[in-house]
């Protein structure tokens, strides 16, 4: 038999002025199951809480109802008080008779009547409450960072700084990512490599950081605090522990026709190679598509020349299983394919290049050693035309509907650098809008116009014609002059839209986190939880979540690290007990609940059931992971057999509330 205690708060005069608290407690005393009812000036005060504690002990209460302010205000306070008196904190219900009653009604009789009904409703609910215990799950004190670009590097460094172990999984042979390919950074024009490579070295030297390069995520199991991840270490054919990075192999490798991905395929590399001079780890890798030994079995020059004995042609993919408490996704971006934009003649002319290709052409370590030369004939370009918004803000289906955010700034940077280095060039920029919000950003763009005399043309290019004389005729509109203009150019640079690295879709599936139609990962809240994914324990850094530049990526990475550290310092995670629970006897294993769960909290287990008469049956039933379930209740409504219910908000409880409200 339940023994309920009811405590009505006056809240000074906030409640008592409109609600006859005396009458409420008198009427409620008569309710079925209620053994004690009282009222007091301030229930949340020290004295008020003492009244509750004393009553729980004295009347041996099994549940309590507080008629007071909103549960959003003091539910936690009253739960703590109940717990202190030995009552399960989830046997407490709050009837909101202040915000939902006394404050919005003027008529005393009406408000009192409503307060009585609200308290009755809470009693109806508490009668069906069950004691709930917050679950606990242990935390593996190690973090995984997927992606070794600037986002991943910064996150790893910050986490390691706090003393936690962190692994970086990078699919390429070296960390560094896109930032390593960039020549200079806006708005300060400092050299990208000069600020990035020391951070890469820090990662390599930090004892807490383990860099798993040339590796990919194979599978992910578990939940916040307890992820088990299988990592595929792709066969590199070079022993990482033995290779000294001396590059002798690269001098002798006879296969020299592999396209150099690091230089955006604008020159070639050997089959055994180190992507760039400052690569971390500074270890060679063999491209199996290009290696003569791996393709035909006849060669083996590198093995012969390697004094460290690091070459191993028989290497196979290796699988490593590790446990992590938190996972940070920092997979970055790539420029979009330009297949849908024939009008810019990207495929037809070597002299139409993307901005990232221009970065490599301008870089001292690039294919031209930093001298700006036309790819077609290695001549110095005199007229250079930039086209912005190539594939960005495009809803026609050819490109991406979003603004890529970084193009206005890097185009201004390119224009400025070219004018600085080659003052005899004429630089034109076709723009739709110039978007430069950010510290010192607009000043930077204005400098390109005012100081460097870059010709900004409001309008868009309609077509680029490769001409017989080797030049490119750019046909565009100048909207401010209402003219159609033709510019003969030596080089055309396309500010190509960026899109998330395509592998992120597979990773999102593995992590059971959500992804939008543009392949950007979704954050838990667009304003207030921007670096957390909706799936607990998964965090997002950099462009995988949305277009952003380096400073923003670094801040986001550090924010991720702070979130990860906040998680890893805990020994145990407390879990919300108001979560879904399956009644296995009713479940028919139809998967409906798993389909609606936004968190991937529901999985299926094979379970043996006794049928009677010594017979058993194995059935597939749904299992809710208590550490992952957030308690929304979507699954409870979708279950066709009503097998799944939400603790703390069970169907019976809500039905009982409904009934009490409607009772006249």
């Amino acid at each position, binding site marked *: 038999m339940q023994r309920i205690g009811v405590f009505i708060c006056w809240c000074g005069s906030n409640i008592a002025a409109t609600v006859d608290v005396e009458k409420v407690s008198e009427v409620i005393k008569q309710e079925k199951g209620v053994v004690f009812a009282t009222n007091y000036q301030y229930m949340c005060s020290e004295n008020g809480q003492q009244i509750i504690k004393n009553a729980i002990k004295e009347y041996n209460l099994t549940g309590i109802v507080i008629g007071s302010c909103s549960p959003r205000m003091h539910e936690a306070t009253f739960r703590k008080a109940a717990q202190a008196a030995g009552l399960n904190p989830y046997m407490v219900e709050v009837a909101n008779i202040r915000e939902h009653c006394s404050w919005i009604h003027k008529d005393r009789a009406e408000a009192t009547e409503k307060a009585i009904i609200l308290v009755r409703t809470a009693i109806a609910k508490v009668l069906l409450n069950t004691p709930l215990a917050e679950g606990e799950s242990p935390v593996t004190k190690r973090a995984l960072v997927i992606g070794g670009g600037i986002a991943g590097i910064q996150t790893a460094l910050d986490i390691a700084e706090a003393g936690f172990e962190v692994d970086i999984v990078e699919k390429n042979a070296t960390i560094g990512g896109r930032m390593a390919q960039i020549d200079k950074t806006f708005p300060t024009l400092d050299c990208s490599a000069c600020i990035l490579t020391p951070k890469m070295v820090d990662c390599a030297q930090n004892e807490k950081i383990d860099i798993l390069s040339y590796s990919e995520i194979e599978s992910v199991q578990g939940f916040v605090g307890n992820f088990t991840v299988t990592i595929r270490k792709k066969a590199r054919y070079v022993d990482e522990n033995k290779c000294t990075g001396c590059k002798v192999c690269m001098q002798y490798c006879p296969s020299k026709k592999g396209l150099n991905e690091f230089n955006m395929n604008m020159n070639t590399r050997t089959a055994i190679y180190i992507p760039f001079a400052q690569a971390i780890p500074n270890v060679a890798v063999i491209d199996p598509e290009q290696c003569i030994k791996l393709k035909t079995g006849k060669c083996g020059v590198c093995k012969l020349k390697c004094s460290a004995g690091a070459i191993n042609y028989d290497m196979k993919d290796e699988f490593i299983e590790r446990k992590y408490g938190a996972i940070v996704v920092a997979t970055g971006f790539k420029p979009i394919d330009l297949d849908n934009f024939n*009008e810019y003649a990207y495929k037809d002319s070597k002299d139409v290049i993307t901005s990232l290709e221009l970065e490599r052409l301008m870089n001292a370590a690039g294919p031209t050693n930093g001298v700006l030369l036309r790819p077609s004939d290695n001549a110095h370009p005199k007229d250079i035309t930039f086209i912005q*918004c190539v594939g960005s*803000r*495009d*809803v*026609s*289906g*050819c*490109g991406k509907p979003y603004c890529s955010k970084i193009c206005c700034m890097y185009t201004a940077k390119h224009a400025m650098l070219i004018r600085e280095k080659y003052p005899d060039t004429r630089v034109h920029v076709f723009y*739709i*809008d110039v978007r430069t919000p950010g510290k010192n950003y607009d000043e930077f763009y204005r400098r390109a116009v005012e100081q460097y005399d870059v010709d900004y043309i*409001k*309008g*868009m*290019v*309609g*077509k680029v014609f490769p001409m017989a004389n080797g030049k490119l005729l750019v*046909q*565009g*509109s*100048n*909207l401010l002059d*209402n003219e*159609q203009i033709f510019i003969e150019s030596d080089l055309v640079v396309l500010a190509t839209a960026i899109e998330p690295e395509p592998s992120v879709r597979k990773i999102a599936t593995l992590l059971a986190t959500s992804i939008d139609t543009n392949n950007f990962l979704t954050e838990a809240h667009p304003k207030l939880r921007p670096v957390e994914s909706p799936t607990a324990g998964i965090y997002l850094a950099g462009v995988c979540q949305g277009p952003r530049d380096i400073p923003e990526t670094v801040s986001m990475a550090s924010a991720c690290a702070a979130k990860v550290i906040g998680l890893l310092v805990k020994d145990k995670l407390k879990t919300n007990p108001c979560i879904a629970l399956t009644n296995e006897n009713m479940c028919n294993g139809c998967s409906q609940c798993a389909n609606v769960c936004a968190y991937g909290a529901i999985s299926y287990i094979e379970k043996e059931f006794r049928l009677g008469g010594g017979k058993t049956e194995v059935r597939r039933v749904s299992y809710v992971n208590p550490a992952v379930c957030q308690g929304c209740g979507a699954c409870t409504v979708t279950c066709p057999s009503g097998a799944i219910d939400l603790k703390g908000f069970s169907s019976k409880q809500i039905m009982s509330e409904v009934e009490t409200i409607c009772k006249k």
Partner: protein
Amino acid sequence: MDKNDFLELANTDVKKCMKCGKCSARCPSFDEMDIKPHQFVSYLAEGKIDKLLVSKSIWTCLSCLACVERCPRGVAPQSVIEAIRDTVTRKAGANGLSAEDIPPILDDDVPQQLLVAAYRKYNK
């Protein structure tokens, strides 16, 4: 007819235009036009129908659809031009051809049959 009628007739969402001018950038008749393709879109959005109705551009537009093909926002400037052209050519209820118009353009080479056909076609 007001702006809404023309919006319905053009059947393209002029509000989607982000004023990039790519339509006018590739227009082969650009130099022959007094009002340019991108202006057709913005004039309609602003409701300046009167100016469009007297524009010479509707007679120089080739209907080549390059503007439609290029638009990154899925707007069809040519549809706007077409809507205006249709309205100008098909003034509802009005005589398309009056008897007084004929003598100046009459030519010995014009077959009689054509005149008869024109009367049938352009008179109400």
